[in-house]
């Protein structure tokens, strides 16, 4: 491996105003190699990518150098010269393919555009022919050049975005959280594709992610970034087996939470759903008529007091519909849902609704931005007759329970960090003293270290308040850490259910096996050997 580095960051520092966002970053990107940049939100991952592309925001001051092999220091280049390099020498793939692709442009034309802009094709026809070849390479051979982004699935869209990025045969490929928005099976397919492309074309790849498990499978070297500094950089196996820096060690520990110890729960059943079926009626859209959609089909569940049931499945499998049905927000066509002996339906009384509440994924969309925290948390009490003093004291209790201080009641949601917001959401869910909490991807948007603390909080609350959880997630390591039992959903049905440890080690259904196989894991060195 004595080849010259394709791209070298030499003591790169970036400041915005008085704030130093990147501090003395040095990275070497070698041909055929994948270098991962791992860090939590705000650590400067994306800023590094922007610096490499010469796309730093206005007012940012960079020192050091970004040496591109055969060109020189990119920081010294003018905008016009950078345009010739962006896309041609250095290409980038983004997190959200729907916004990275132009929605009103056919995908063939989008791939061809990259070729035409950089003069790699004589004319449009030639460019389209090359686009076809590239789309075939990324596994879209069945997809016509004239399709629009919205006609593709999430995974196909990301493939199209990759095709557009690699069409001009760049030397360097930057993937910024490129698989974060995809579900596990699609994610593993895209990662395989990226790995294969890097090996075949001899590209250098910079893989930016917050997810250590993704990196473990892919990268040759890992650089761990914290608060704008690289705290540790080493080959992947070294980092995973013998992390040197304490921050890397906490990151690794948080990313692979221990499975929950086996518990036997024999308390009373608090939730019973039997043969629940939800069908969305046929709808007329213009002249076409869409057929009725079966979102839930004969779903049965039981949940005991103090138990945690994990609900896993790919996107669109009906997890969220089931959650809404359990909360009494969906009209069900057949079957019955019963919580602590009383039926659940869209027209049940507010007093009956009190028994189940929900925590959402997005810590930003969960609160009315114009309300103070005390009003947000107390909202579930609005329709339940509660005196003003007891409202205030319950808000205070809830805040303390979730580890916030009573003074926080006066603040507004935007004054809190993502992890704190999730605590506020939990406080709101607890205020009615419910029996059941639905946690709908409640920790998925959080950084690993924050996530670990929120999970600990949820566990201790469960012990203290004897809560039952329905834990909806796509992340199998988290579900192993939390759940006593797991139910696997596919196409509106529960295909497999059983004790967590058993189901995760010895899945019976093909679908569960695929799901487990696709999940990225930290136990890399062994898998890596299998592959090479």
């Amino acid at each position, binding site marked *: 491996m004595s080849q010259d580095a394709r791209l070298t960051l030499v003591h790169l520092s970036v400041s915005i105003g008085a704030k130093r966002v990147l501090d003395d970053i040095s990275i070497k990107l070698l041909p055929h190699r994948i270098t991962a940049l791992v860090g939590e939100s705000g650590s400067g991952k994306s800023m590094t990518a922007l610096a490499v592309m010469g796309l730093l925001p206005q007012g940012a001051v960079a020192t050091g150098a970004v040496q591109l092999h055969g060109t020189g220091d990119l920081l010294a280049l003018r905008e016009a010269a950078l345009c010739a390099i962006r896309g041609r020498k250095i290409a980038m793939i983004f997190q959200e393919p729907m916004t990275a692709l132009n929605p009103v442009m056919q995908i063939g034309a989008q791939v061809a555009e990259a070729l035409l802009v950089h003069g790699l094709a004589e004319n449009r026809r030639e460019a389209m022919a090359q686009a076809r070849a590239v789309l075939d390479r990324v596994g879209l051979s069945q997809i016509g050049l004239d399709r629009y982004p919205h006609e593709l699935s999430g995974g196909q869209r990301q493939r199209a975005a990759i095709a557009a990025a690699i069409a001009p045969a760049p030397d360097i490929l930057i993937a910024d959280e490129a698989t974060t928005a995809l579900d596990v099976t699609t994610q593993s397919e895209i990662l395989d594709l990226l790995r294969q492309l890097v090996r075949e074309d001899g590209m250098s790849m910079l893989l930016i992610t917050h997810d250590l498990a993704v990196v473990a499978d892919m990268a040759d070297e890992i650089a761990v970034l914290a608060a704008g500094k690289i705290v540790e950089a080493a080959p992947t196996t070294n980092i995973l087996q013998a992390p040197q820096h304490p921050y890397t060690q906490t990151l690794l520990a948080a990313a692979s939470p221990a499975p929950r110890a086996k518990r036997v729960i024999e308390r009373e059943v608090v939730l019973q759903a039997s043969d629940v079926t939800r069908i969305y009626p046929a709808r007329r859209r213009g002249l076409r008529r869409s057929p009725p959609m079966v979102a839930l089909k004969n779903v049965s569940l039981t949940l005991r007091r103090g138990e945690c049931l994990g609900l896993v499945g790919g996107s669109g499998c009906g997890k969220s519909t089931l959650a809404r049905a359990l909360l009494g927000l969906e009209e069900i066509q057949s079957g019955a849902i019963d919580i602590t002996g009383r039926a659940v339906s869209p027209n049940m009384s507010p007093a009956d609704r009190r028994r189940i509440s929900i925590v*959402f994924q997005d810590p930003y969309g969960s609160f009315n931005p114009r309300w103070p925290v005390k009003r947000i948390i107390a909202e579930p009490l609005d329709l339940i007759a509660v005196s003003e003093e007891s409202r205030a004291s319950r808000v205070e209790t809830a805040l303390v329970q979730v580890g916030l201080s009573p003074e926080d009641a006066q603040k507004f949601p935007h004054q809190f960090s993502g992890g704190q917001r999730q605590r506020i959401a939990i406080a709101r869910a607890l205020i009615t003293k419910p029996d059941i909490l639905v946690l709908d991807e409640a920790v998925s948007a959080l950084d690993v270290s924050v996530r670990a603390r929120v999970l600990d909080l949820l566990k201790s609350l469960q012990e203290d308040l004897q809560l039952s959880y329905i834990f909806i997630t796509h992340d199998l390591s988290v579900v192993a850490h939390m759940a006593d039992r797991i139910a696997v959903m596919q196409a509106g049905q529960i295909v497999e259910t059983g004790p967590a440890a058993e189901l995760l080690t010895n899945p019976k259904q093909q679908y569960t096996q695929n799901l487990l196989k696709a999940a990225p894991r930290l136990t890399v060195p062994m898998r890596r050997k299998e592959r090479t």
Partner: protein
Amino acid sequence: MKTQRSLFIGGAISLVFLMLAALSLFWVPHEVTSLSIAARLQGPSTTYLLGTDQFGRDILSLLMVGAQTSIAVAVAAIGIGAGIGVPLGLLAAAHHGRIGDEVIMRGNDLIFAFPALVIAILITATYGPSAFNAILAIGIFNIPVFARVTRAGALPIWTLDYIMAAKVAGKSKFRISLEHILPNILNLIIVQATIQFSLGILAEAALSYVGLGAQPPTPSWGRMLAEAQTMIYSHPMLAVLPGACIMALVLGLNLAGDGLRDHLDPRLRQVVK
């Protein structure tokens, strides 16, 4: 910076007219109903700052009271438009995709199909011309505008998690609309009101110009224009002054509206940064 400037300039212009109109309620240089043939068609002087018209009325006083008429008509019309349109828009959004939404929005389209002037002619043909009927006509024209803006602003909010949380708490659509939706789209409505304000001024001027607005002796900018028409070559200032007032106020309100929108709408604010 730029948006702040347009908000400032537009706001200042609008404020000057508002203050003149407010002042005219208590004091004007000369009574606008007193005619004086001896003093007709005079040029600017210390007695008559902007001169007099063909009946010897003081132009400055006419313009001040005219501003009062225009603003009163436009504001009352916004009141009707927003008072009916906003609840309709909230209702439509709350019943999105169902029959209620369809009925409201198609009703909107129906009103949209008739320009304010046609509605005004319709009303005046039935009830006779008056300032009140002008208000009614412009107000009806405002309803679908506010309903549309409200519905469009409300729909994305209905999909947010905190609405779901409110539903879980057992709140009705009505209560959710009032507590969560309305406060979060109020900025949109305020901006739209500013824009409708300027359109209302224009519509009032147009209606008075064709004789369908405020009736004599109530002064109005539109009718001043119409009356000056015959003397446009001999005494051009008679037409230029009310015309300039209409233009300046509409420009001021539009600038203020644009500035407000950039200032209040977080999506646009990001782009500006």
